[in-house]
């Protein structure tokens, strides 16, 4: 296991036509839980895309498992992201025409490593997906066979969490994962996400402007507003 899972060093990034963002350094170690806070426009989502290798920094370095994203070509970055990172968005996380179960299994379609690791934990991919869904409180067979667009928002977010966790990626990145949830659902969702991430040994980085999430995190980083 490497000492540092994810490192962000002296990174600058500019969207076309916008003022450049200077982003704070960040070092995430295995099993850590980070909350990235900041107002809109502070570059939270940009940082998330830099960390997942979708964007490349203009200056500085973002490295996953000690390998800077810059070393890899586009296709290799896609493979690396699928292998090591589980992603959860604010909402609309699911492919609408697939069942909840099929949505959870998607990363195993695109990443051989995730598929292999999922099969280390259970006899079949379906069994592992069902285990994760059950751990997140979705154990109704009718529910998980239902098309994703017929689930409630809370259920959808839990399916998205199960999908991020399947195949035990080292890093879970989440962008405002609870903003579409009410207070009770938010609490339940975060409890389940952290319990499962901890059980899998994954680090979690959550981007949010919601100060109410602070109690769940041991590490926080505040991004400043652009001047």
């Amino acid at each position, binding site marked *: 296991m490497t000492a540092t899972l994810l490192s962000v060093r002296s990174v600058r990034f500019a969207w076309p036509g916008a003022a450049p963002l200077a982003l704070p350094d960040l070092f995430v170690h295995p099993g850590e839980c980070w909350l990235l806070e900041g107002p809109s426009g502070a570059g939270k*989502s940009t940082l*998330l*895309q830099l960390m*997942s290798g*979708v*964007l490349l920094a203009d200056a500085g370095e973002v490295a996953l498992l000690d390998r800077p994203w810059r070393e890899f070509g*586009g*296709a290799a970055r*896609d*493979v690396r*992201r*699928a*292998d090591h990172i589980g*992603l959860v*968005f604010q909402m*609309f*996380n*699911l*492919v*609408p*025409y*697939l069942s909840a179960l*099929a949505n959870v299994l*998607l*990363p195993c*379609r*695109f*990443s051989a490593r*995730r598929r292999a690791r999922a099969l280390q934990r259970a006899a079949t991919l379906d069994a592992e997906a069902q285990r994760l869904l059950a751990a997140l409180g979705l154990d109704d067979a009718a529910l998980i066979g239902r*098309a994703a667009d017929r689930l409630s928002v809370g259920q959808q977010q839990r399916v998205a969490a199960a*999908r991020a966790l399947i195949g035990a990626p080292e890093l879970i990145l989440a962008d405002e994962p609870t903003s579409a949830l009410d207070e009770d659902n938010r609490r339940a969702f975060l409890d389940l996400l952290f319990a499962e991430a901890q059980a899998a040994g994954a680090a979690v980085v959550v981007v949010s402007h919601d100060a109410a999430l602070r109690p769940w995190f041991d590490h926080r980083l505040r991004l400043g507003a652009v001047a």
Partner: protein
Amino acid sequence: MKATLALAWRSLWARRFGALLTVVCVALGSAVLLTAERLRADARESFVRSISGTDLIVGPRSGSLELLLATVFHTGTPGRGMDYSAIGRLAKLPPVEWVAPLAFGDNYRGYPVLGTTTTYFERFRYGRGQPLRLAAGRFPTDVYDATVGADLARRYGLALGDKLTLDHGHALEAGGHGHDHAEMPFTVAGILQPTATAADRTVFVGLDGIEAMHIGWDGELPPSPASRLSPQEARLQLLGPERVSAALVGLRDRAAVLAVQQAVARDREPLSAILPGVALLELWELVGAAERVLRAMSWGVVAVVLIGLVTVLWSGLDHRRREMAVLRAVGARPAQVASLIVGEATLLTGAGVALGALLAAAAAALARPWLEARYGLVLAGGFGPGDLALLAALLAVGVVAGAIPAWRCYRMTLADGLAARV
């Protein structure tokens, strides 16, 4: 590709009504193309096989097209014709198996009258070696017997025993004098089955019938009313034909065709012999413009269908940006996301082409008995390698058309990244 094809299937299933409509459009387009191609091929085939089993057509030395039009399509006449003695000389050539003399120059309501011998009815073949078959009655045996083609019988309601009055000349419009042979009516002795050839619109009589009508004629000039004969008087004056228009020749050995051609060219009369298959193909090239128009139109239909397919996939992309971003987030590369669109195009086109092939086959099966009974047009059965190649070409074109929206999808996916901006 396997992963994306499975996803494409699920995605289409989720939109099955719209997808079904697209499949039906593709199916109709392919069915039109397949049917048009088959009709085109069959029309060409049927044209080229307007005559078969005849190795040479012999006639007065003139253009081969003129000779072909007269002897196969029964339009026009090959020059001045030839002396009947030439038929005897032809029959004596060693490779020659049979000779069927043909005499043109009269019409029934503008339709050609063909005088010939029993050899013609025994030996003439069209299509895939089909002989002329009788729907009723017999081939001409008596001097005043006439056997009529299926179209003529239907159009004029001719039945066995009906009297026909023939006119001199090729057609009423072109110099028919109006019942020039009115005093010598012919009797319908037989009615042919449809053949989809010129035989359907021809009145067949014996050579002696032609001779009887023209006793006392001086070239194109009819005899004076006083010297006209009655049918019974003409019967007694028959001496055998003097001139015929042309002759069909069958050989024992096809390899001798060039030798016979040369022998004909050396005859004391100025004659020439043509190969019907070659001449027909030359003529088809000449009149084949309709064939090319048909082909262009059916590909036009396919183009319209494909534009519809591309439009459906293209306009669907805007609604699916979020879906694409999600796929990207779970590890699909932009190329894989784009291949989802190509996969959908492949499935839609594949299903459409398969359904279209079934439609075309069903239409052909339904139309076959009717076409054969009504027009004597025999459709080729089953799918040939040409049809399969056409189906493969359609599928390929569909996949390539899918690449247009897929390219847009690729660009969108690359630009959107994980941010599902909608």
